[in-house]
């Protein structure tokens, strides 16, 4: 709609998309970010956060609106071509090939990077040593957290320029979550745009630059990450602050 002033980075303009044409899950969602930025999306369950990421990655048919990346409209481009051109998505569910070994998962993901797969895969094994330990195991036998590592490694292995993370810390131990989230600023500094969805809101906001709040499929709020974290109203609605005590007092 307003494709006039495109600039580098990711631009989502009044995007309306869903799984069945004519039954949109997200409506008129807009979002903009530059390379090097970490942006977090928060919102209640079923708000449409994952749907948004999937739509950006080209997995859904878009009813209206556009997504553009680096001055190029990417709506309508097939997910594999997007992936080849530097968009990586870590889905929330079903994010590894269960019947394949860890090695095969990584090598498969590394097909789209230019350098030889061995180097790229080795980098990932250094980053996530647990994957090296279970290198030949069937990915389906990994523990919940180990799967998450693998899924993230599969996205990172291709050195993407846009990284879409759907709840990367879910299922990770506190320590691992910190490590993974802590990795992000470093990655962003290599001019990667990182858009993530998180329910581990506080931890996510600490590493994010900006954040959007999504509810009922629409943009509800947008702002600086730190400011959002300290916003009392949003805190209560989306982060469970304060009300906890009230409820705990009532029911226990």
């Amino acid at each position: 709609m307003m494709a006039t002033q495109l600039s580098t980075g990711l631009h989502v303009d009044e995007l309306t998309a869903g799984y069945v044409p004519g039954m949109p899950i997200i409506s008129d969602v807009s979002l903009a970010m530059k390379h090097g930025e970490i942006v977090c999306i928060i919102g209640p369950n079923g708000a449409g956060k994952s749907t948004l990421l999937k739509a950006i990655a080209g997995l859904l048919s878009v009813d209206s609106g556009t997504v553009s990346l680096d001055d190029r409209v990417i709506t309508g481009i097939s997910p594999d071509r997007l992936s080849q051109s530097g968009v990586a998505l870590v889905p929330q569910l079903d994010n590894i090939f269960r019947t394949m070994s860890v090695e095969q998962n990584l090598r498969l993901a590394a097909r789209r990077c230019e350098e030889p797969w061995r180097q790229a895969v080795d980098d990932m094994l250094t980053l996530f040593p647990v994957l090296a330990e279970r290198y030949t195991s069937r990915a389906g036998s990994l523990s919940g957290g180990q799967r998450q590592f693998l899924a993230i490694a599969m996205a990172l292995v291709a050195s993407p320029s846009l990284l879409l993370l759907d709840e990367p810390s879910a299922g990770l131990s506190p320590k691992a979550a910190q490590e993974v989230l802590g990795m992000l600023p470093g990655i962003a500094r290599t001019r990667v745009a990182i858009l993530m969805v998180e329910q581990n809101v506080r931890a996510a906001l600490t590493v994010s630059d900006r954040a959007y709040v999504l509810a009922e499929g629409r943009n509800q709020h947008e702002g600086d990450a730190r400011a959002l974290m300290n916003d009392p109203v949003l805190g209560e609605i989306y982060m469970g602050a304060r009300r906890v005590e009230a409820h705990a007092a009532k029911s226990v």
Partner: protein
Amino acid sequence: MIGIISYLAFFLTIALILAIAVLGLNLQWGHTGLFNGGIVAFFGAGAYGMVLLGGPDRVDGLGGFSLSYPLALLGGIALSGLLALIVGLATTRLRHDYLAIATFGVAIAMESLMRNATWLTGGATGLRGFERPLEAFVGNAFAYNLLFMFFVLLCVSLVYLFLETLVHSPFGRLLRAVRENERAARSLGKSPAAVRLTAFVIGAMLMGLSGALYATFYAFISPQDLAPILTFQIWAMLIVGGSGNNKGAVVGTLVVWGAWVGSGWLLTAIAPTHLQLYTGSIQYILVGSIIVFSLLWRPRGLLPEKLSTHSYPLPEPGAPNQQTGSAS
């Protein structure tokens, strides 16, 4: 006119007999996810069981029970149920294609037995000698066929009602749950093995009923009736009609069987005599095309499965997006 009615009654009789087997398969596959590749085994058990139990004495083989028709019919059904129980127990651990090939093996073994064990089944010649019940009483062939059609219709209706009641009950929900996610079903205290076995046996007994009625109507059964093509036909009927939907199963039977024989009739009606030699092959091509196009047109069947198993109203269905968010 009477000719058309007579033919239609005949057509419907066979179609409805097959519909019973399709309904049985729908219970197994459509609702429970059991990939039964050996329908003819149970169909055959019902048919042979009924003829053996109800037929007269045979010179060179087992027989001579001469039970009354209802008993023979029940006996045939019971025999297929028994076979299903044994097969089911042996194959409860198998899924998908593995179950299909195992049951297919049972069917082939059954066909082999029928073809070779002359003392039991008359061998390749088949079994006859069974009198159609009440035929002599009715006398007129046309009237008898009409009567038989109504009898079959009654059977189909009862089976349909029974299955509709089943699948819309908690039992039906249980069947689906086992089909959808066995592990989850187990974690909720359900015993998938028992559920699968029950559905398998009930479905097989319906196939047995179908076989028994088939043999009654033709007053004859032979291994040629148990060729694997029957299994495919029954499956095609279910898939075209819509697996998981009992109405779909019946509609699919009528459509596929209608297309199968109708195409032959149509071709001889329009083809000049010298081409009639080739109408057999063309008929197959037509049948194949009808199946393929029907599936392309309605991939989930003519009457697809419904999502909900019960008829109670939901509080607020509709598009999720128009509802209020959780936390606001």
